[in-house]
């Protein structure tokens, strides 16, 4: 069954694929680095928006969902601010680091909610688990990389390490996302509350005589 969440994830993959094609075309065919960096900025904003929207379906807390919604706006404004303040066009490493750390926080919160639930089937039988694992590994693996890239990207030795780590993490992420596609979600069984809250003291039949 195709759910709304799966549709959003499908849109996310299609948009990302289109942006990657456009980005590489600008970089390698038109040789325009400035346009490529701009596309990367658009890419990260769209990626974060769609991922936040996707996780909002799974996070049950209303407050956290509101925070998720406002974080999209805040992140968008932060990306514009970062772009406006940049003197030389470069890769937006700081917005990338911020995106990954926010995503990490929300995924950890999602896992916290999962642990509160009473379940009858293991979490790894659900696609959302593999998607979350993919993004938690991607964010954890790339966070320090992007953070240090802002100051050391021009170093050739660093670039070599950057390529190795980034490629490895991205490959793992994509494998995990492929696994998530293969998972068939089951319909959850609803559990009934065991306790009953009643107060019958309002109709006590006997008034004890002293």
């Amino acid at each position, binding site marked *: 069954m195709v759910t709304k969440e799966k549709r959003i994830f499908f849109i996310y993959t299609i948009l990302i694929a289109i942006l990657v094609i456009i980005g590489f075309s600008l970089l390698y065919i038109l040789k325009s680095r400035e346009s490529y960096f701009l596309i990367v900025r658009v890419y990260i904003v769209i990626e974060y928006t769609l991922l936040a929207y996707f996780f909002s379906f799974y996070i049950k807390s209303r407050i956290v969902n509101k925070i998720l919604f406002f974080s999209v706006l805040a992140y968008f404004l932060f990306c514009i601010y970062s772009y406006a303040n940049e003197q030389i066009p470069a890769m937006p490493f700081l917005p990338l680091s911020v995106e990954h750390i926010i995503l990490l926080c929300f995924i950890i919160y999602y896992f916290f909610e999962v642990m509160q639930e009473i379940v009858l089937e*293991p979490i790894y039988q659900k696609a959302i688990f593999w998607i979350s694992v993919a993004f938690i590994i991607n964010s954890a*693996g790339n966070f320090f990389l992007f953070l240090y890239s802002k100051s050391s990207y021009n170093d050739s030795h660093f670039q070599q390490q950057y390529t190795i780590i980034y490629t490895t993490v991205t490959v793992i992420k994509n494998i995990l996302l492929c696994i998530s596609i293969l998972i068939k979600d089951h319909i959850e069984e609803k559990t009934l509350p065991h306790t009953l809250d009643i107060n*019958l003291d309002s109709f006590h039949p006997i008034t004890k005589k002293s």
Partner: protein
Amino acid sequence: MIFLQANNNSTGIDTAMFLGTLGMLTLAIAIIGFVIFHQRKVIRYNSQLKKLEEEKQQILLNASIRFQEEERNRIAADLHDDAGPLLATARLYLNENLVNQEKAQQLQSIFSAKQILDDAILLIRNISHSLMPPTLKNFGLESAATDLFQKIGASGSLNASARFHDYRTRLKVDQELLVFRVIQELVNNILKHSNSGFIHLTQNISGNKMYFRIHHDGTGIVQADFEKLSHSTLGLGLKNIASRIKVLNGKIFFEIDASQTYFKVTIEIPREPAI
């Protein structure tokens, strides 16, 4: 020298980045592992609970079958031991020699046979009433319960009363019968085991639920005892109560009052008004 410094600086950054990335990945994997481990524990616990619930269901089912068999045996014994001899005696009075007897003797025999047949009719009626009380069938649960408590009170051994606060809409016939049987069983248990001085039934409604509460000041049980007895091989009556409550989709609570002076049994059932 400058080159060396730059190189050292670069290596330091590389190491910091490498360690940071490794640390973050370890943290992420640890979180994932912990979530999976915790979930497995929860699932194991839930499956154990499910197994226990299934076992309980099985015990209740067995108890209900046993109770049905005991009820059949009791009726068979009543019919065989009481109704059978009565009818056989009546047959003796009405044998073929009756025509050869004197008129006065004939009248005497017919009168005795009539009396025995009346007794047999009364006995069969009592058996039938114990199976399905006519008050319950004709006038509903309120009348049947009030009648039951009046009869107990009339015996003079203890003070018994019933009060229905809101029973303007009758329950479905099936529900009424099940509730009446549960009340009957509880009252029987109280009379047999509690040695109480009073017994009182109250009824009320709240939302789409109906509540019945029995109070008594004798020796009673609390919820933990009820659960224990329902799971054991003892307490057939309690198992029967539990299975009837289950059929009603209701709940039952055995408690002791905060003052520790009397016990309360509360029954909660969904309201399904008779059409």
